């Protein structure tokens, strides 16, 4: 294919297909079929049974009740890979992280090298898939592309490892360097398929907050969460938290790639959403910083509770790293709001658990809703006012759970 034409095509963001072909009409409100497929719940290696959206590549969704904890256990932590060919065995004697490209001294580091020759650092941070909660876009009218994740494509863990900055400084980044490319060991089924690849500006890579993690909640990373190394980018969606991280390449020029230019992108405007017309007519930008969000861990939908019970409603809230200021709760579908009590603070990038004592006094159906605001005044949108994008990325509208009091 002609290279210039292809790049132009990519630049115009006309790839993801469907919307493109039809052009300019305003998207119609289409409800996803109510006959929703229910995936099986199966235990994968080092995991408790989780919802298996796909076995190859593995896509495993955590149940909603994990949001009753500020730290997500490794064996219930969600899983999302892009490529079908994932090594099922890694010998640490052979495994090396290669640091190359525009550096003075290319490095080839074992996991032991990282543990012994660099300062260890630890951070508690939320890891959230860009498409997490995507299915709720359809609930207010318009379905989105991709597999329809509920809220369970996120978790929060204590990550321990080495600063990316320290690794890059050890290698000696050349003055001409502008971009850092990262990839891991997962491979496509065919050689022609683009490999999973992510890229970031050199300033971001050198910020000091990114770490190459070798531990998750005090243990080796589980295989399916990226053993033996993964990148951690606190406050950012997980798209660039590359698993089985094996190569860091410093570039002088930006490298065009499907996974940066087309996948995981949203309209490059203030709302990062479609105002009119088709999503793919917009200039693109990669999703990056997360948006303020809270979800309910208990009760789960359709829980039946006896009148007069003392119910501890609880869940988690987080944002891009500014810190949660307040989480409001309504038990009457949004008519009245009260404050919840924020629990232990694990740091600005972590889940902030919240709790609310509720004593329902009358029988009937109730809708519990929560809404978080962060320290710079970002507040969650209501479900019917959230900006829409075709990829279904960055969903952060007010969460709602229906329960029955009997």
């Amino acid at each position: 294919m002609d290279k210039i034409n292809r790049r132009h095509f990519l630049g115009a963001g006309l790839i993801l297909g469907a919307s493109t072909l039809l052009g300019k009409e305003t998207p119609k409100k289409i409800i996803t079929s109510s006959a929703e497929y229910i995936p099986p719940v199966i235990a994968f290696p080092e995991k408790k049974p989780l919802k298996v959206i796909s076995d190859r590549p593995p896509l495993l969704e955590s149940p909603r009740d994990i949001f009753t904890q500020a730290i997500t256990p490794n064996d219930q932590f969600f899983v999302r890979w892009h490529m079908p060919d994932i090594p099922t065995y890694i010998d640490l004697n052979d495994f090396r992280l290669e640091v190359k490209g525009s550096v003075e001294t290319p490095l080839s580091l074992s996991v032991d090298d990282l543990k012994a020759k660099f300062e260890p650092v630890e951070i508690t941070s939320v890891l959230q898939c860009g498409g997490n909660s995507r299915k709720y876009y359809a609930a207010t009218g318009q379905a989105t592309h991709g597999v329809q994740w509920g809220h369970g494509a996120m978790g929060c863990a204590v990550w321990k490892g080495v600063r990316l900055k320290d690794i890059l400084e050890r290698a000696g980044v050349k003055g001409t360097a502008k971009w850092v490319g990262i990839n891991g060991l997962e491979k496509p089924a065919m050689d022609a398929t683009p490999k999973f690849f992510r890229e970031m500006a050199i300033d971001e890579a050198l910020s000091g907050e990114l770490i190459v993690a070798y531990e998750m909640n005090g243990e080796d990373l589980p295989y399916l969460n990226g053993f033996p190394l993964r990148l951690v980018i606190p406050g950012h969606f997980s798209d660039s938290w590359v698993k089985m991280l094996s190569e860091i390449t410093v570039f002088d020029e930006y490298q065009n790639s499907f996974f940066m230019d087309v996948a995981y992108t949203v309209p490059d405007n203030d709302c990062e959403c479609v105002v009119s017309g088709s999503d793919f007519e917009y200039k693109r930008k990669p999703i990056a910083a997360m948006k303020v969000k809270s979800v309910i861990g208990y009760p789960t939908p359709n829980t039946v509770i006896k009148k007069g019970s003392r119910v501890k409603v609880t869940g988690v809230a987080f944002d891009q790293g500014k810190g949660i200021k307040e989480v409001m709760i309504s038990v009457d579908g949004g008519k009245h709001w009260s404050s919840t009590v924020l629990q232990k603070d694990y740091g600005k990038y972590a889940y902030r658990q919240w709790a609310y004592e509720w004593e329902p006094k009358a029988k009937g159906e109730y809708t519990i809703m929560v809404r978080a605001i962060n320290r710079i005044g970002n507040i969650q949108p209501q479900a019917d006012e959230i900006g829409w994008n075709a990829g279904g990325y960055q969903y952060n509208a007010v969460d709602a759970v229906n329960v029955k009091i009997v």
Partner: protein
Amino acid sequence: MKKLLATALLLASTVLFAQVAKPIEMPYVDYPMVKGDHDEVVQQYCLICHSWGYILNQGKKSRPYWSGTVQKMVNEFKAPIGKEDQQIIVNYLVKHYGYESTAQH
């Protein structure tokens, strides 16, 4: 005491090492797939790179959506699907996992 500590360390390293001592075994999930309308063509191509769960978990989609998705597989992911087979796959998806509509999603 030293002996105890050494034993504890040995145990700890054994536990950590256990995670890589042998290959993990990934379960296989037999996702249900409607038979007929050349499902063998659909299987032949779609399942090269991903499970049938990718289709089932998107919900029912319109003809332009499935058509665009197959185009993406061919143009971006380089799926080696000829024009006729692309049409067979789109028709199969619309019939069994979608609906006839000009809507984009």
